[in-house]
């Protein structure tokens, strides 16, 4: 607190007041009040404030209404400027996936949104680079295993028949794992040509292949479905699903139909189904149901991951559901070709 020239004389007084009110007495006094100041000549000077006139209250009300209107106007204008890009931003963020092919979020709108879009795009790039590196590493390992496996096959040629047969079985198993892993990597990184194809006949052909090999696979219902797709990826998709149905459920019943403009393929088995927690997790790479961790069913746990990658590459999806009685149903949703 600084004292003016005239206050010097009143120093003891001020010190008393300070002790009473403190240095930072609240200067905001609400309501009417009176100040009494004793002049040097001993007379008192009174200053009294009046209550705000009632007109003033209305004025403030009107003013605040006006401000509100103005604010609404501004926010509507601003909102319009923000909402569009924000919606677009949200929709793009929704589409973000780990693949490099996803379109970046458009960098438009107000500054903050542009910054957020750029940040998200960079994050997307980092994630897809990470996934690409990880995927190509898996692929490289699987690929490099083929060289020693090749040599091994020649090494055992001259081994005694019993040993040779055993080693060849092991090699065949490893070969299969390597093949499946490479399929998985390829499904994730390579997208071949998409062309118009008949989905029901493709599924039927795969079912016929299984049936020709003596497996219990039957197409129970079929409808003509032309879609735009990649035959190789789709073959893998349905081969894996039917193979799973046979492995865990002993048989496969296949249905193709059109529902709400969607091409649907259903594959039912009569196996034990999956625990509810496993229904979604089953698609994770290298996931294997608790009961299937035996060598009899084999596999690395990539079949469903490959199937899902293939479905996603076709902007489709796969849902697993337990059937009411028993068995598991895999439902594949794909969008039909526009000019089918």
């Amino acid at each position: 607190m600084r004292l003016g020239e005239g206050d010097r004389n009143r120093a003891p007084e001020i010190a008393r007041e300070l002790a009473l009110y403190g240095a930072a007495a609240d200067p905001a006094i609400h309501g009417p009040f009176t100040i009494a100041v004793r002049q040097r000549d001993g007379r008192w000077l009174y200053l009294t404030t009046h209550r705000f006139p009632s007109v003033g209250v209305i004025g403030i009300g009107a003013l605040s209404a006006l401000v509100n209107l103005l604010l609404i106007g501004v926010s509507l204008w601003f909102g319009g400027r923000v909402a569009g890009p924000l919606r677009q931003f949200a929709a793009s963020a929704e589409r973000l996936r780990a693949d490099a092919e996803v379109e970046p979020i458009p960098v438009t709108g107000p500054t903050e949104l542009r910054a957020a879009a750029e940040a998200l795009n960079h994050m997307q790039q980092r994630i897809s680079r990470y996934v690409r590196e990880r995927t190509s590493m898996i692929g490289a390992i699987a690929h490099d295993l083929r060289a020693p496996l090749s040599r091994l096959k020649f090494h055992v040629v001259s081994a005694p028949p019993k040993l040779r047969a055993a080693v060849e079985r092991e090699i065949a198993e490893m070969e299969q794992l390597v093949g499946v892993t490479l399929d998985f990597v390829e499904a994730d990184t390579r997208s071949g040509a998409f062309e118009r194809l008949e989905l029901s006949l493709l599924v039927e052909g795969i079912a016929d292949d299984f049936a020709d090999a003596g497996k219990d696979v039957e197409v129970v219902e079929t409808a003509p479905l032309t879609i735009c797709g990649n035959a190789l990826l789709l073959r893998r998709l349905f081969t894996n699903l039917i193979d799973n149905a046979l492995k865990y459920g002993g048989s496969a019943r296949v249905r193709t139909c059109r529902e709400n403009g969607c091409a649907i393929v259903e594959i039912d088995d009569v196996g034990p189904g999956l625990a509810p927690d496993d229904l979604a997790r089953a698609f994770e790479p290298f996931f294997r149901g608790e009961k299937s961790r035996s060598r009899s069913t084999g596999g690395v746990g990539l079949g469903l991951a490959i199937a899902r990658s293939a479905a996603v590459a076709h902007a489709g999806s796969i849902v697993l559901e337990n059937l009411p009685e028993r068995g598991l149903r895999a439902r594949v949703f794909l969008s039909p070709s526009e000019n089918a």
Partner: protein
Amino acid sequence: MLVVDDDTDLRALVRDYLAAEGFDILEAPDGQAMRRELATNAVDIVILDVMMPGEDGLSLARSLADRAELGVIMLSALGSENDRVVGLELGADDYLAKPVAPRELLARVRALLRRKALHLGTASPKLAYEFAGWQLEPLRRTLRDPGGVVIALSDGEFRLLHAFAEQPGKVLSRDLLLELARGSESDAFDRAIDTQVSRLRRKLLSRAPGEMIRTVRNEGYVFLPEVRRA
């Protein structure tokens, strides 16, 4: 026979194995050495690895394509459908995915030598067939209906149709068709040929009208449409 592979150990193993079967084997670790060997020696078959540092097997196969007397078998650790097609289109006579079974390699080598001796050309048909608006590409294993839509058949049906397209207008006996449709690797072809043919007929008819495969009583089947090789 010339084995071209940068994997020294595998090269030696392939050499020893084929030498034990009575073949004369030369070796080359890369394209340059391959050309050197080819310039100074008489070679019937080149066994060519796809993945090699420097000039890779595919481009080497391309450079050998105009030497018709030379058989080329490609070995690849990639072994995907697409690589197989590319390898065969570039002029390789056969394509094997690594890890190759020694007996399989031997069988393919002998088959190629037999075909060369008979001047039968290559193992893999490099043609496309066109009939009644349909298009069949055996190499890519693709069939298109007259509307251009890809129709996927089962393996057996596809081989049957391929056999028909190769010999249109001729009566093919069930035994012959069974032999052709069985394929080289599959021994699980237990369906009667009649079932296969009727399935194939139904699938073809579901996409375009018109009889294509006619039954000849007590003899077999005949493929009716005119076939154009493209």
